[in-house]
């Protein structure tokens, strides 16, 4: 039963991602070609609301449903890992027009071939795990 709320939040997420068209391959093309504000508006407004909310959660020590104060872990500083990993991710994002959230959502949208995209992403993740120690972090 404790998982049912995550299912509900996920359903909400899938609907938002579809209706906002953030799952659209065309919208990602449009974004990287700087031909519309739509995607920048979505990410930018999510960020503004997100940043304000995170500050409020920290300041007022808002608690989660389980009663614990919500904590945020700082990410370990490095440049190579985020820059190189980010570039590889960006190459895939612009080509497939989808990042992981949209991959799942598009599968539900009826683009069943996204099962292959997700499988490929799993193989990519596994391959990273294989070579992790040889890559700069």
């Amino acid at each position, binding site marked *: 039963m404790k998982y049912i709320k995550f299912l509900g939040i996920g359903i909400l*997420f899938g609907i938002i991602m579809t209706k906002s068209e953030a799952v659209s391959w065309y919208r990602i093309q449009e974004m990287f070609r700087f*031909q519309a504000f739509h995607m920048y508006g979505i990410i930018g407004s*999510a960020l503004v609301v997100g*940043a304000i909310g995170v500050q409020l959660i920290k300041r007022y020590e808002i608690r989660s449903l389980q009663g614990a104060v919500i904590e945020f872990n700082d990410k370990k500083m490095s440049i190579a890992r985020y820059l190189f990993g980010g*570039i590889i*991710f960006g190459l895939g994002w*612009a080509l497939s027009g989808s990042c992981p*959230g949209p991959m799942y959502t598009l599968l539900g949208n009826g683009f069943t071939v996204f099962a292959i995209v997700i499988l490929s992403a799993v193989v*990519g993740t596994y391959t990273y795990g294989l070579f992790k120690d040889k890559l700069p972090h």
Partner: protein
Amino acid sequence: MIEFLSQAWAWYISGPLIALVMFLLLWAGGSFGVSSTLRSVCAIGGAGKRVDFFDFDWKAQRWNLVFVAGAIIGGFIAANWLQNPEPLDLSPATVADLQAFNIPFDGGLAPEYLFSWESLMTVQGFLTLVVGGFLVGFGSRWAGGCTSGHAISGLSNLQLPSLIAVIGFFIGGLLMTFFIFPLIFS
């Protein structure tokens, strides 16, 4: 109400709602980061026996797998009961750019001919679906997160590493769009 929901949602409605999803996940005891689920899938498949990176307690992350199962259902609901009767309002400049690569704009969320099972057997389709997916999986784990984990969660928490990752996302995205994409689709 259904009529309102069926339209494409404006960015200033969609963005804050995505932030709401992040808050709901935090409130429920999770966090917003979708690419972690790919690592869990590897662990479930037994990758932890061979590679240490996958030898972790994925069961503690089960909530995230339930979340993405919800995203699949949400996509299904939106596509079947809240579908937009109008074609996607893509910028005419993008339509023209894609036309130049012989990619027709069909008004849907993604070009059907490229995102189909038949397309898998073509060079362009294989690159888009299989290589594209692979790069997303490899890159997101190397960078320690994807759009949700870095661009939304990380930047909302003012994390410099997330800013570096997002800059990387755009360097990679622009390299693909303006240098590699034209080679694949010309």
